[in-house]
């Protein structure tokens, strides 16, 4: 297998304001994120040779992106891979550029959730019986109760994830929420899916994010502070882990499998020491705790301690979700993975202001789709 390391550069990033964008259409958000990324890279829409777009179910096909930006008559591919749709779109674009087929490509991820009044993520496919009535929080609450039972993880540890990510998000103008919360607020919130309460859940959000990528050898013609792709991992495990005999349900192997691929490509032996910051998929507070373990930042079962001891705070050993994460930035499904690329790139470029992680050189982004079934991990680093 070929090596992806250092063959692709991120030269432009953009992100629409995340939130309940009642005053914005899909087109408005794609235009905001897309043109910000194009301008950041210093290119025009006509310079883009191919594009990838990630959305769960807000639109169909490459036309959703092409019609908004009027980049037409070129290859545009729509990617859907549950909540990892955005990062998988980025991954596919990177491999296409690395292959030499294209010099410059655009990646956009977006989702429009608030134009309908659905509670949670709208169901696209319902089997009449199997997992009928199961909601997104259920899938992670099942892991939470198992983790509580097995390792003694507590609601208070979960709450600390929410408090940290709201604290970080308060420094992010593009986040859905700029609002500090305290642990008591989290613990006293109404239950959504036990043990997860309202503040253990990320919001449903409208948003879009974009990135312009190119071959590394031409990156300097766009900007000096380009960022390099060091590793790209993707693992797809069973989409019905709740029916899988023996599945422990105390974490998501898809994350670990994807991380191992990316670490190997990037040459990372000790993630805790070698990674300076991580944007991980905290769709629910328990998920961030599982991510610490599944991304091998700490041992299995020690995720609760990891947050409690402050390792994942800005200024800690390995700051996690300095952007505020899904919890505070919001989670426009297909948009999230690309928003993480935007955040990590700008952290490595030292462009994020108050939430800047000091001396950041290597960053990780982790997108998780479905019932923990689609794990996608990207490692970015400065040249």
């Amino acid at each position, binding site marked *: 297998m070929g090596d992806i390391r250092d063959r692709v550069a991120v030269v432009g990033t953009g992100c629409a304001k995340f939130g309940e964008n009642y005053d914005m259409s899909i087109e408005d958000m794609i235009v905001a994120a897309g043109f910000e990324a194009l301008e950041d890279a210093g290119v025009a829409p006509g310079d883009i040779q191919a594009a990838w777009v990630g959305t769960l179910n807000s639109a169909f096909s490459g036309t959703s992106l092409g019609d908004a930006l009027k980049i037409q008559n070129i290859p545009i591919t729509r990617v859907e891979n549950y909540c990892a749709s955005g990062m998988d779109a980025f991954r596919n674009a990177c491999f296409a550029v690395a292959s030499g087929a294209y010099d410059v490509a655009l990646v956009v991820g977006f989702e429009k959730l608030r134009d309908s009044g659905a509670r949670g993520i709208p169901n696209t496919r319902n089997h*009449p019986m199997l997992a009928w009535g199961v909601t997104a929080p259920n899938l992670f609450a099942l892991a939470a109760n198992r983790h509580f039972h097995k390792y003694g993880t507590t609601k208070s540890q979960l709450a600390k994830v929410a408090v940290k990510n709201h604290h970080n998000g308060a420094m992010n103008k593009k986040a859905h929420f700029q609002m500090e919360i305290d642990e008591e607020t989290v613990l006293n919130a109404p239950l959504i899916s036990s043990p997860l309460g309202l503040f253990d859940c990320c919001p449903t959000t409208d948003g879009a994010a974009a990135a312009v990528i190119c071959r590394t050898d031409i990156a300097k013609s766009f900007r000096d502070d380009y960022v390099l792709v060091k590793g790209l991992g993707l693992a797809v495990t069973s989409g019905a882990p*709740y*029916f899988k*005999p023996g599945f422990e349900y105390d974490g998501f192997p898809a994350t670990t499998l994807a991380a191992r691929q990316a670490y190997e490509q990037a040459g990372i032996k000790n993630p805790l020491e070698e990674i300076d910051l991580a944007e991980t998929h905290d769709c629910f507070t328990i998920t961030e705790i599982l991510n610490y373990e599944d991304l091998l930042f700490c041992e299995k079962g020690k995720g609760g301690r990891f947050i409690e001891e402050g390792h994942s705070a800005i200024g800690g050993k390995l700051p996690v979700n300095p952007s505020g994460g899904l919890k505070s930035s919001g989670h426009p499904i297909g948009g999230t993975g690309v928003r993480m690329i935007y955040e990590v790139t700008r952290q490595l470029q030292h462009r994020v202001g108050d939430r800047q992680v000091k001396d950041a050189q290597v960053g990780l982004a982790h997108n998780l789709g479905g019932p923990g079934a689609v794990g996608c991990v990207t490692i970015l680093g400065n040249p």
Partner: protein
Amino acid sequence: MPKRPVGIVSFGAYIPRYRLPREIISRHWRQSGGKGEKAVAGFDEDSFTMAFEAALNCLDGFDTDALRAEMRFACLATTTPPYHEKAAAGLLATALDLSRECRTLDSANTLRAATAGILAGIDAINAGATSRALVTAADQRPAEPQTAFEMSFGDGAAAVLLGSEECIAVLEGHVSINDEFLGTWRRDVDPYVQQFPGGFETKFGYQRVLMESISLLLDRQGLKPMDVSRLVLYSPNARAPQNVAKRLEMDPKKQIADAMLGNVGDTGCAQVLLSLARVLEEASPGDLIVVASYGDGSDALLFRVTEAIEQHRGRRGPSHYLARRRPMESYGRYSLFRDLVKSIPSPGSSSPVVLWRETKQYLQFYGEKCGKCETIQFPRQRVCVDCGTKDNFVDHKLSRHGIVHTFTNDYLHPSLDPPTTEAIVNVEGGGRVLLQMTDAEPDQIRVGLEVEMVLRKLHEGAGIKNYFWKARPRD
């Protein structure tokens, strides 16, 4: 050649957990009184699911392969079938995994449906069409709010297995009276059971026809009223059967069986079967039991209890369920369950095509076992989840017992009875399933909880009844 004795081989019962205190109903309507409580089917139950659980209890301990080979008669008696056109007994026979050649009969439209089913089953056995016959009865009759029916109607089910070997109660004789009478009825357009007001039905329908059928039965059998150990008499209320007994010169206190009006309610066509099951729980060899149903006439059946009753104790009969109650805290929940208010629309979708293709795994709970690595898996699939071997499976019926691996109580999914508990269950003997839980308080659920699987109505997406298994804390 003397006729072989034919009769009841086994019995079972089912009463829903939810019990609505009648005081809550009367208080709701700013009236006084209201004694006892009535059983209310959960939002996920109907006449089919109740009859099915009664049938499982009735058949518990019998060799299922033998039953599949022998049973050629299955009946579901109800005035409240899940479908007005589509067999409920067919669903029952399928879910019980009976032979495809089993004849099914929906006995319907009258409170006499259960005894009509029993007599049809007996006839089938006597005719040599089958060696065993299963007869179930269940009802959840719709009662108009603020009426006496609302106070009296309850939900429940019972089942009897009929046969000619190892009878616990032999049918000694029976009579049937047909009597055209407009006392109680419900047309298709009527949302509730209707009744002609006043004492007309009690005097000229109920009393007259029951005296006729019971007297004729006793007369033909050469019995005196006082010879009867127990009279199981359909009881629309507490007083009516007493008048019948007195006029028959029987002792109401000693001879009339408990119709369970006080703690279960009037369970419609299931009432006499449920009451008979209660009597059989405590019957002694030699007891003479008269079962008299009522509805457009009357069937009266005389059973003589045999020695075999002693070997038949301990199964789940009415007393098991009477002891397992879940008080319903409000009229509001009752009115939601009974569709008395505009409720949350079912968010489900479904497909009769999918249900047909996968019937085996839904109604019958079949998974499969890999022929190579022996992993038991559900749902059924083509390639083994564990070793990847293709198309090398044997059918494996999942056990109805298991242990909770993990769970969550969900308040997001719209439900008439929140929270919706989702549980991952490790099935006894192999298999892993995700099921909703039912009949449980949220704080009861924990990792390691023992559960038993029950068939329930999951939702009514696509305008059909989507039946699937749920888990309930094991009794």
